[in-house]
C-alpha cells in the first residue's frame, strides 16, 4: 500500500490511542514503583517505552507524517541499549548479594 492510499485517523480516534498509551504508561509507572524484583522493574520501563511508541505512531498517522515512525526506531534503539546495560548491571548486582531484591541495595556502599 502506498503512502497516498493510507487513511489518516480522526482526532477522536487519536484520543483513543493516546488514552490507551496513557493507561499503559501509568501501569508501567505503578509496576516500577511497586515491584521489588530488579528485572521486573526494568521490564516495567520497557512498558513505558511501549506506551511512548504507541503515542508516537498514532500522532504520526494523524498528521500523515513518518517522523513518528522514525522516532519509534530510535525508541527501539534506546530500549535495546538500555536492556543490555541494565541487565549487565543486574547480573553484577546479583553476583554480589545473590538476590534480585532492589531493597537489598537501599544502603549503597561497600559491604
Amino acid at each position, binding site marked *: *500500500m*502506498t*503512502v497516498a*492510499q*493510507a487513511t*489518516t485517523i*480522526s*482526532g*477522536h*480516534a487519536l*484520543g*483513543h*490511542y493516546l*488514552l*490507551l498509551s*496513557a*493507561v*499503559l*504508561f*501509568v*501501569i508501567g*509507572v*505503578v*509496576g516500577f*514503583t*511497586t*515491584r*521489588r*524484583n530488579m*528485572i*521486573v522493574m*526494568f*521490564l516495567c520501563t*520497557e*512498558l513505558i517505552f*511501549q506506551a511512548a511508541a504507541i503515542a508516537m*505512531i498514532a500522532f504520526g498517522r494523524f*498528521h*500523515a507524517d*513518518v517522523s513518528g*515512525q*522514525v522516532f519509534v*526506531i*530510535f525508541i*527501539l*534503539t534506546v*530500549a535495546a*541499549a538500555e536492556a*543490555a*546495560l541494565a*541487565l*549487565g*548491571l*543486574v*547480573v553484577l548486582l*546479583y553476583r554480589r548479594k*545473590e538476590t*534480585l*531484591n532492589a*531493597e537489598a541495595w537501599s544502603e549503597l556502599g561497600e559491604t
Partner: protein
Amino acid sequence: MAPTILYTACVGSAIALYLLLRPAPGSIKVVAVLLGLAAIGWVVKEAARAGEPGEAPVLIFYLFGLITVAAAVRMITHHRPIYAALYFVMVVLSSAGLFLLLEAEFMAFALVIVYAGAILITYLFVLMLARQVENPGEQMMQPEYDRLPREPAAAVMVGFMLLGVLGDMVLGGVGELPPSPSRLQQRLAAVEKLNLLPRRVEAAVRAELGRQTEALVLVDGDGRRVHLAGETVYVNVDGPGGIQQVTLPEDALPENIEVVGLALISDFPVSLELAGVILLMAMFGAVVLAQRQIELSDQEKQAAANAEAKAAQERGR
C-alpha cells in the same frame, strides 16, 4: 465526555489495580477484575458516544487495546518474573497489532523482531541465571520480594491521579488539534517524495512504455520530475516519438517503509549516527560490566607464573 466520568473511572480502576497487586484470595481478585473491566467499559462507551459516527476507531482497536492493557496489568501483578516477561511479550504482540491498524507495517514487524525476539530473550536469559524456585507451582516458595508489592496504595494513587490529569488533557486537547492533512495534501507529499527517487520513476516509466524503449524522463527547471494533475501522477518523457506525458500507475508512489527509510537518512542523519554510537557504547558497557573476574589462589598463581617462565625459556632457546 465529562471529566467527572474519567475521574470516577480512574478511581474505580485504581481500586481494582490495588486489589490485584496485594496478595488476596481469588474471589477478591475476580471482583477486582470485574471492577476494572466495568471502569474501562464505561470510559469506552462514553468516549464512543462523544465522537461523531464514523470517527471512532475500528472494533479491532478495542480488542487489541483490551489485550494490551490486560496483559500489562497481569505483567505487573504476576508473582513469577518469567511469566511477567512472557506477558510483556503479549503486550508487544498486541501493540504490534495496533501499529498494523495505524498502517505502520514496518514498525509492527520491527517491534516483534527486536522486542519480542531480542530484548525479551535477553531478559529471559538473565531471569534464568538468577535463582529458581525449587518447587514450581507452589507460590509460597517464591521469595518474599516477588510476592509482596512495595507501597501499592501510594503507587496506585499517584499513578491514577496522573492518568486522570493526562486523560483529561488528551480528551480536551484532541479537539483543538489542526485538522489532519487532506487526501490531496497527502498525495502531494507522496509525489514530493517520489521526486527524490529518480530511479524509481525511471523504472515505473520503463514498465509503462515497455522495456525496450529508450526514454528520458525530463526534469523541470526547479528539479521536479513528477507532476500531479488532479488525481493523476504523470511525468514528461522524451522518447522516440517526441515528448509525451506518461501517467504513472498508483503503485509507483512510494510505500510506507520507503518513506520511513527516506526520512531516516534525509531528515534525521545525525540522529541515525548517534543511535549507532549509542548501540556501540551499550555493547562496550555490557561487555565490561558482565565480564567475570576470576580469582586465583596463591598456588594457582604460582603454577601460572611457572608455566609462563617455562614457555619463555622454550622460546629463548
